[in-house]
């Protein structure tokens, strides 16, 4: 048995069912890296990765696709991920998108790519609720996953069958533990994505009867495992998945223009409308303020007012060393108008 996927086929008792499947992965951080590698090795046909961030030294402890050179080059994660993933499996068609995963961007991707599955590699609930609404609107399953410390949670959401995230969580949870405050160990990432990845392989192979119908939580340090059946939790009047759904998280009012990035002590500022920046021009302008301006093909970094900033071509700015969205917004406006 020499075919690349023979061991998988033996298990599935089916010849390679993944070749024509397309997965949209939102987030290429800890969860996203592990999921991407799992699915690329499994030989899915297409993978689209969207991530707004770039590789940082502190990512290397748990984000398995990235290496030291990526961090030195400040490569956007989606790009670095694609580079590594193609080395693993050159047959998979991979699209890397460096942008914020807001409702417009994701809706456009859903229209363009028509994925079979949406995967949660995000680090914040705001984006998860957007994914949740899109999943319902486009009737595509998605798999929630999250981790912090030594624990991880995951849950499969199938439109029309299971409760959605808004049924389970009636309000957006307040900022809880983040990788910044509570830290995280790599095994927690591997464990969470093992659950997500297995469910992904079931869904993509059409094994609906095998899908886990529980919300699962595991703590690898405290040695606990919990699973709760969500069957009874579907809400008849849910604004995201009921017959009267309005998809509240896809509307513009619910979007914030600033976001604090998980585990990074960093604020992201998005422009009010789509902007395209000419990075070399801006670099030249910034050099008057500060000498340590650096550029690669995708982004520009500089130190302004004691804070390191990173500018992307699509007009987004990351402000490092800050958790204050107002302060970051002011800096953005000061620099770029």
């Amino acid at each position, binding site marked *: 048995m020499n075919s690349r996927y023979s061991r998988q086929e033996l298990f599935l008792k089916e010849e390679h069912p993944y070749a024509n499947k397309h997965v949209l992965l939102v987030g290429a951080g800890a969860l996203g890296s592990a999921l991407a590698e799992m699915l690329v090795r499994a030989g899915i046909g297409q993978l689209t990765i969207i991530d707004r961030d770039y590789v940082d030294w502190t990512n290397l402890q748990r984000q398995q696709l990235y290496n030291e050179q990526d961090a030195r080059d400040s490569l956007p994660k989606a790009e670095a991920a694609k580079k590594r993933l193609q080395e693993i499996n050159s047959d998979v068609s991979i699209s890397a998108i460096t942008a914020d995963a807001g409702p417009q961007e994701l809706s456009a991707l859903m229209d363009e790519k028509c994925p079979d599955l949406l995967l949660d590699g*995000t680090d914040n609930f705001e984006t998860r609720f957007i994914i949740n609404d899109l999943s319902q609107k486009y009737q595509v399953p998605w798999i929630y996953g999250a981790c912090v*410390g030594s624990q991880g949670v995951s849950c499969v959401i199938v439109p029309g069958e299971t409760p959605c995230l808004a049924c389970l*969580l009636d309000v957006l949870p307040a900022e809880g533990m983040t990788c910044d405050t509570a830290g*995280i160990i790599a095994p927690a990432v591997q464990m969470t994505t093992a659950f997500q990845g297995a469910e992904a392989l079931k869904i993509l192979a059409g094994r609906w009867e095998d899908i886990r119908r529980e919300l699962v*939580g595991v703590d690898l340090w405290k040695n606990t495992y*919990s*699973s*709760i059946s969500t069957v009874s939790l579907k809400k008849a009047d849910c604004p995201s998945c009921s017959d009267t759904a309005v998809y509240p998280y896809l509307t513009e009012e619910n979007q914030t223009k600033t976001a604090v990035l998980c585990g990074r002590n960093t604020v992201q500022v998005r422009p009010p409308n789509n902007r395209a920046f000419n990075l070399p021009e801006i670099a030249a302008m910034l050099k008057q303020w500060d000498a340590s301006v650096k550029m690669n093909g995708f982004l520009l970094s500089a130190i302004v007012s004691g804070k390191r900033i990173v500018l992307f071509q699509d007009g987004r700015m990351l402000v490092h060393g800050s958790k204050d969205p107002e302060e970051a917004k002011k800096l953005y406006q000061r620099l770029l108008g």
Partner: protein
Amino acid sequence: MTFQLHAITTGTLELAQASSTAAAIHSFVDYIHIREKQRSARELLYWVEAFRKAGVPAEKIIVNDRLDVALAAGAGGVQLTESSVPLKQVRPFLRQLAAGCSVHEPAAVAHANEERADWILFGHIYDTASKPGRKPRGLETLQAAAYASRVPVIAIGGIKPHHIREVKAAGAKGVAVMSGIFASKDPAAAAASYQTAIKKEEINDMHIVVNGKSTPISLQELTIEELLASYSLQGKAVIVEINGHIVPKERLGLTTIQEGDRIEIVQFVGGG
């Protein structure tokens, strides 16, 4: 089964005082043993009758050694020592009586098990005035005796309320007390203090299963909300299931936890 408390007469009291003591303490103890080795069979009969008249329930009265007295007086049981007629030979005549055995060696415990004694009095564990000149057997031998026994092993010999925890930890299923209660200036208070110590250990026995892990809890009437607070999860985004049923958020503070409950808590964390 709850931890047993046996009280044993001292052999030095007159009947009037012994029976009024028995009346005062019986609600705090499981059994009262009439152990009066110097007294005749007829006297022992009067003792049982006097205890009963004073209000001690018959089933709590245990006569040491004298099966004939226990049967005739309608006592609750007999305590057979190594000088008594063996349990095997007494069994055909027991009728409804309970039968306890007294042993001093772990090796004798097996035999008492074979004979299906109702309990085994094992000692003496600590320094006691009752057997002058003998070395206390200690907790190790108690543990050896209890380990080998399906029949409950009741520890005896100098036991004070503060010994209950370690005696229980060694595997004993109860304690028997002689001078600690019957020779006390206030026997009812003394019996109550043993009972308090026993109850305290019982509370530490409460176990629930949380996320698959057996967890001792030390407070009765604990609500799920209080349990969540003990894990620093109050106010956090969680889903809680108890014995297979999801607890709605508004009921978390109203649902109390019982011994043996199986609880699942999943917290919605947000990182990735």
